């Protein structure tokens, strides 16, 4: 009798050990294989490289930028004029003239330096708005999904109402009330993007909620917040990561649009949308002032979109197997 119990216990322990080893190997290999799949996609690698360059430029703006982004060059340099086209020595611009890779803007400031500093602001805009939206959205969505019932109904109907507005217009309405300015624009874009994350979080919480390990946790006496934050959320992270990466691109585009409408960053802040807006009427006479900030916005958003697409395929094995994208 005793021997049988002991034998059973030992077998049980061995089985547990095996399961644990398997689980740990699996948990490593899921992320590792996702990374491998991500790096196999040329477009995602391109996106990562572009993002790397951008982050580098943003971090070292003080060193790379030849001028202060807000410095007016009249009286500082000779032979400078308003909206001067680019002067690049390698491309045949006379050596005696100061080099301005992207020309000078309407206030005689170095456009290249302004574009460089703009990277800092745009990345900041993307990360802060999306972080804000992810935190609030995930909180709302996971509470709705986990608790269910009337609270779920109330939260999700509220999200439906927010989704009923075209996002840019709602952001415009919010900023018009808060007053123009970068911080208010960020807040507006953050609020507008909450529903997307709330929906994603709710959906994945609903999927995970019924799984055995959650029930086991509950049976062991885990409290609601413990189960939600330590057990369920870590297991519903992947769709949020994907949505977040793609969301950064959209947030940067929306922030640029608000600035273009005069509701976001105010001059002389070197923000790409504001820079574009300031010189929009000069597109025929000084196209370089419109071209470069727009190109910078496009490349930044493209980097996040490429990475986001890659992550979606890498983190969703179903898609990867079917080769649908």
């Amino acid at each position: 009798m005793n021997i049988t119990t002991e034998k059973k216990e030992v077998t049980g322990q061995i089985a547990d050990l095996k399961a644990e080893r398997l689980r740990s190997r699996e948990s490593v290999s899921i992320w590792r294989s996702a990374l491998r799949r991500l790096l196999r996609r040329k477009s995602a690698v391109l996106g990562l490289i572009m993002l790397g360059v951008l982050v580098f430029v943003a971090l070292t703006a003080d060193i790379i930028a030849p001028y202060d982004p807000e410095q007016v060059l009249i009286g500082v340099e000779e032979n400078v004029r308003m909206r001067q086209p680019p002067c690049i020595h390698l491309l045949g611009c006379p050596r005696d003239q100061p080099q301005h890779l992207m020309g000078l803007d309407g206030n005689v400031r170095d456009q290249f330096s302004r574009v460089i500093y703009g990277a800092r602001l745009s990345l900041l805009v993307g990360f802060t708005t999306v972080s804000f939206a992810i935190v609030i959205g995930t909180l709302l969505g996971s509470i709705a999904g986990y608790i269910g019932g009337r609270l779920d109904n109330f939260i999700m109907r509220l999200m439906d109402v927010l989704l009923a507005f075209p996002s840019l217009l709602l952001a415009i309405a919010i900023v018009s009330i808060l007053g123009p300015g970068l911080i208010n624009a960020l807040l507006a874009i953050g609020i507008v993007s909450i529903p997307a994350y709330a929906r994603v979080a709710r959906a994945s919480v609903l999927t995970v909620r019924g799984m055995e390990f959650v029930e086991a946790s509950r049976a062991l006496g885990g409290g609601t917040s413990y189960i939600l934050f330590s057990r369920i959320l870590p297991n519903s992270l992947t769709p949020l990561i994907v949505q977040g990466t793609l969301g950064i691109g959209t947030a940067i585009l929306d922030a640029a649009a608000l600035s273009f409408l005069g509701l976001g960053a105010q001059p002389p802040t070197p923000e790409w949308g504001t820079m574009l807006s300031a010189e929009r009427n000069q597109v025929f006479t000084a196209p370089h002032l419109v071209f470069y900030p727009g190109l910078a916005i496009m490349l930044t958003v493209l980097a996040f979109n490429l990475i986001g697409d890659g992550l979606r395929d890498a983190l969703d094995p179903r898609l990867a197997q079917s080769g649908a994208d």
Partner: protein
Amino acid sequence: MITYILRRILSSIPVLIGILFVTFALARLIPGDPCRAILGEKATEKICADFAVRHGLDKPIPVQFAVYVGEILRGDLGTSLRYGKPVTELIVERLPTTVELSLAAMVFSVTVGVPLGIISAVRHNSVVDVSTMLMANIGVSMPVFWLGLMLAYIFALLLKGTPLQLPPSGRLSPGMSIPPFFEVWGWEVDGALRSILAFLGGFNLLNSILTWRWDVFLDAVKHMILPAVAVGTIPLAIIARMTRSSMLDVLGQDYVRTARAKGLPRSKVVLKHALRNALLPLVTIIGLSLGTFLGGAVLTETIFGLSGVGRVLYDAITARDYGVVQSFTVVIATFFVVLNLIVDISYVYLDPRVRLD
């Protein structure tokens, strides 16, 4: 079927009430006294007290909300300080330009996006596929206002003097105008009917066809190309990607293999069997893109000198005419909900499986 439609209509009522509530709440959240915000320096104690009584600001919040909803249901959206006109009148006057632009953009994005998506799916992983998807990725990453400005620069300045030159602003060339069709036809109408006919007459393309003025029609088309391409590019990229992935899904299914196995030519299988099923999600995507079209119109109209709803909104923002911004938000959001309702209902006709759910 009818139950589904009714249920769908009923389910959008809470959303509409929610929209009204959100815009109402936004209006009440303005920091400071609305009287001082609107009247500025003219606001004295006495005037502000009168102002509060006149606008019902002294009443409890639920009563204020009821009054607000009542005003909107009667079509009273307030008056624009900048234009000195009722907002409703502004919308009727300016909406045709925006709707025409959105429709042109939609036609562009669907007629180019769908074929591109099909070719990419059929020639999966080919050069065409890879380059289309790269272009699509670039397309969704472009700020619409930048694309508009660049198109204007390329087609109005760089290509000046070539047959590809296109006008960068306005709806018609200077000096070219046509009276609305009902006046040309000698109809004498007034009241609501006249407003409706004037609204329809505001669509230049329609009006020029109805009055048989092909010179005006061509001119209007020329003016429409650049803004439509600018507004349509992002949805085009999304549509191409969606068509591709849903075609790939369908092409891998058994019935497609069966169709091929029984000897049908590939083109017939792709266009008749696969495409019909692959296009269903597209209806949803077009519905979801309506917001992009409208948002794009707001940003593009100012660039191309078009006096549509977007332009009014832009002017209202710059003149801090915030009441107009809110009224427009209500109108556009309602419009958006109704359009999505129509898309959902049309889906039932297109896909019998939806009815079974």
